[in-house]
């Protein structure tokens, strides 16, 4: 079996790659996320009824493969895109189950996938994003997603 060797792949090329300055884009893994909504929202439970969500808590989904939670930040453009899996807790569901005749399975973790596209603050301390949120099967809100 013969092996073709590209004439473009030279020791000099490899050395230049090795010594090149680091780029402005960094791929990173998302190890943790914690967040709260500042207020309660109206969330539907069927075509006609809705509940108060209560203050919503969001955290990383421990059932998601860590490789799913990944992003890229471009320091030159101060842009960031990140994808991650979350579990979301709605206190309103606890009230719905405990005060009504509803299936306790509603209290199972609500899982969702999020994709944030955002601008990083100039001091690089944080960012604010417009995100897409897709609720996964297994929750009352499965099928809901960002537009």
């Amino acid at each position, binding site marked *: 079996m013969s092996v073709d060797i590209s004439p473009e792949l030279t020791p000099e090329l490899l050395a230049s790659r090795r010594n090149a300055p680091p780029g402005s884009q*960094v791929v*990173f893994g998302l190890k943790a*996320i914690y967040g709260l909504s500042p207020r309660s929202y109206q969330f539907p439970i069927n075509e006609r009824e809705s509940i108060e969500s209560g203050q919503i808590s969001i955290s990383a989904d421990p059932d998601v493969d860590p490789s799913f939670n990944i992003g890229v930040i471009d320091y030159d453009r101060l842009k960031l895109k990140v994808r991650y899996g979350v579990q979301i807790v709605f206190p309103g569901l606890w009230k719905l189950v405990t005060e009504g005749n509803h299936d306790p399975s509603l209290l199972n973790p609500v899982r969702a996938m999020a994709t944030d596209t955002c601008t990083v603050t100039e001091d690089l301390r*944080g*960012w604010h994003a417009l995100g897409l*949120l897709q609720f996964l099967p297994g929750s009352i809100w499965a099928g809901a997603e960002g537009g």
Partner: protein
Amino acid sequence: MQWGSQFLVNWPTHLGGGSVYVDFEGSMVLTPLLSL
């Protein structure tokens, strides 16, 4: 790092349709993997 996001959620028809904007404020922990 500090994190905040606003999500637009569209409800499917069996949940009555419509949409809601949901805001979160919190933090994220990021680990650099690769510089491009």
